[in-house]
């Protein structure tokens, strides 16, 4: 381990709802420029884990540190100010504003101009907004109302918005959910390229294993709230436990069925 703190350090994260342990003692870390995939079957605790990283949810115990600074008790907007951009599983954008305005809002917030009542917002960071949109391949859509966009374009817009505060870390919750196969590959290729160029750490959850194995530098696997495997795509692919969960699903299902319990 190097002396400098890792970009993201997660230690012993635990969360339970009533008697259900959604996440149990999860620890991992992430370096700058690294693309880390968080995978696991439905109900493994991915979303809970994710929400605790971005401030939507508070862990019962455990710590999340960004470059050594504690983020556990912080609100989402405070975590954003520390340099964390995020995209949502179901896109959240400003539907009545144009594509460019969506990015401008994020830039206005980043430039601490939120309470500026006098300036002309259409001209604020117009060039920078255009550059970010070009970066994600949305340059031609800048004046389109956001509510008219196709889903894949909304995902790319979210990426542009997430990049507006020059983040050190990107959190992407199922970035390619609901997209066509070709769009998935494009979006992840784009994300990976941007992350390497700007040395941004990326943590993403994903169901599509093709996307995961192709783009992740490292993979961590959650099952029933605990971390069961960690390593390179090749290592994880060869891990028998992971295989049991993913590849052996059919067998597990049959076994569970016979016993009358769900797998």
């Amino acid at each position: 381990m190097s002396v400098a703190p890792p970009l993201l350090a997660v230690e012993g994260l635990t969360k339970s709802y009533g008697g259900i342990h959604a996440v149990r003692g999860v620890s991992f870390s992430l370096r700058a420029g690294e693309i880390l995939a968080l995978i696991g079957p439905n109900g493994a605790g991915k979303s809970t884990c994710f929400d605790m990283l971005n401030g939507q949810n508070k862990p019962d115990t455990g710590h999340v540190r960004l470059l050594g600074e504690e983020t556990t008790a912080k609100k989402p907007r405070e975590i954003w100010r520390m340099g964390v951009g995020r995209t949502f599983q179901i896109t959240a954008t400003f539907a009545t504003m144009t594509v460019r305005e969506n990015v401008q809002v994020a830039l206005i917030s980043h430039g601490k101009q939120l309470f500026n009542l006098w300036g002309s917002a259409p001209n604020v960071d117009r060039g920078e907004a255009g550059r970010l949109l070009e970066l994600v391949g949305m340059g031609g859509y800048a004046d389109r109302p956001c509510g008219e966009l196709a889903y894949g374009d909304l995902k790319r817009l979210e990426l542009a918005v997430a990049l507006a505060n020059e983040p050190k870390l990107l959190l992407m919750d199922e970035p390619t959910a609901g997209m066509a196969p070709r769009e998935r590959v494009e979006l992840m290729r784009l994300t990976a390229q941007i992350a390497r160029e700007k040395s941004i750490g990326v943590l993403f959850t994903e169901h599509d294993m093709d996307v995961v194995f192709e783009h992740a530098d490292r993979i961590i696997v959650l099952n029933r709230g605990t971390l069961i495997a960690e390593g390179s795509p090749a290592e994880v692919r060869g891990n028998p436990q992971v295989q049991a969960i993913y590849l052996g699903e059919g067998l597990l299902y049959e076994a569970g069925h016979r016993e009358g319990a769900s797998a």
Partner: protein
Amino acid sequence: MAFYVVQFLTGLASAASLFLVASGLSIIFGVTRIVNFAHGAFYMIGAYIAFTLTERFSGAFGFWGGVVVAALAVALIGVLVEMVLLRRIYHAPELFQLLGTFGLTLMVEDLVVLIWGPDDLVGRRAPGFRGAVDFFGQNIPSYDLFLIVLSPVVLGILWLLFQRTRWGVLVRAATQDRDMVAALGVNQKWLFTSVFAVGVFLAALGGALQIPRDAVHHAMDLRIIVDVFVVVVIGGLGSIVGAFVAAVLVSELNAFGILIFPKISIILVFLVMAVVLIVRPWGLFGKPEAAARKTPGLTVNPWRPLTSNERLAALATLVIAAMLPLFAGNYALTVGSEIAIFVIFAVSLHFLMSVGGLASFGHAAYFGLGAYGVAFLAKMAGLPMIVCLLLGPLLGCMGAAVFGFFAVQLSGVYFAMLTLAFAQIVWSIAFQWVSVTGGDNGILGVWPASWAASPSHFYWLALGVAALVTIALRIAVFSPFGYALRATRDSLLRSEAVGINAKRIQWTAFVIAGTTAGIGGALFAYLKGSVFPDNLGISLSVDALVMVLLGGVETVSGGVVGAIVYKALNIWLVSQTDLSKMVLGGFIVLIVVVFPKGIVGMLELLAQRRKKSSPPGSSLLAKPIESAE
């Protein structure tokens, strides 16, 4: 000691009607998601019909039969209303539902005066409960004891109804997930209708049972609906137990508040409500709502600043308006000044509602506070007009800062109800605190300085301020702050995720809107030469809402157009008919049902249709407003 016990029992008795009405409102909201503003109207009709029936038929049977028949008759009226009006607006944004049912309330107010006359009607005492019970030298009316027993009994019956009947199971299921219930093959139409009928029955019963205690009059609807809103905000919308507990709490606070702050007892209720909202924003027994629905429908047409041609056109309009004194008489100029002042008022609410998505149902509070601010400064401190005009609106600003802080903690219908309750509290203070505000007599003799005294000078002043305010708010819409405010309206989740403190932004917008309304109120005080509690009353708040809706809630400049058209129409209407509330109410219902985009919205639509040859965008626009569920 006995005195306090009696006071406590009086409070409990008052809670009965409040509980009946509030539980009805809660049940209806739970299933249909409509906050039925007309609930107070049903309460009032219940009282009036019961009055007629109990006067007509004597004896115990006549009285109790009359009460029950009255409630049933009103429930039937409720069914009609549900089938004819509400079924058309179930999918409209909640603001339109509140307004539609409010329009209904206005119509009913004129209707009862038409049928029963404007005077207070004092009903019969209940047979069997005429006397009083002696309690250590204090008298308790036996009817109060009956009411005290009644509310837990009704609570029990409702509980049995919901837990033990098939209908109750369906209602509880629909309260949790009405789409799922519909998907399971339940006839949703009749479920909604029956739920509405039960809710209205409870409201009417509450009104009918009130006859032996209180006179029946045509303003009792607004009085009860505000109390009921306070009750459901404290108890939690959708919870019957919450309605019961909060009704008792509010009634007791009123009963004892009179002893502690005889002049401004309502303060106590406000303080309790404020504490509840901080500790449990969804009420004592309420559950947090899922993300609030957006108030305006989705605009496909993004906003943009005016082009230079449009600016010239606006300037030309202003110049023409400024030339009015050249050819118009004094009356027309006074009307013109009033319209200009209402433009200020409307654009202030429009800023909050359209840009911020926050539909305040009590915006007149800040208008009126501005007016009172001027009156205090001019009459008590004797300051010159220009100073009063500059400082008076600060009272509106302070009011908006205090109430806005609490209001923005909530959203959607809760926000609307809370702002309404706040406005009513300010009204009550103005009304009750006679030594300071003059109560109902108001503050007279607030005359403008000589430089602004002539109608033409005052008109120019009002027009100039209105133009400045409109321009300033337009600049704000297209400022970084305006973008941030629109962002919080469109998606709270996303705005928090890009570092925006949504509540702070919304609070700031609330204060801006309140201060601007205060500027309008300050001018209004000088225009009328006097200030009355009506200047911060509910009907003025609703005027503002109608102006915004009429102009178009999804537009940037709808407030201006809406104010001019509405105010001109209103002044003309009042001079033409005695039934102005009836016409106004009908007008509101009409806007809500067939004309939800407003004047400017319609014009934009037409312009866009002409421009666009490709239909997909416009066909999307032509759909009636629907919520983004």
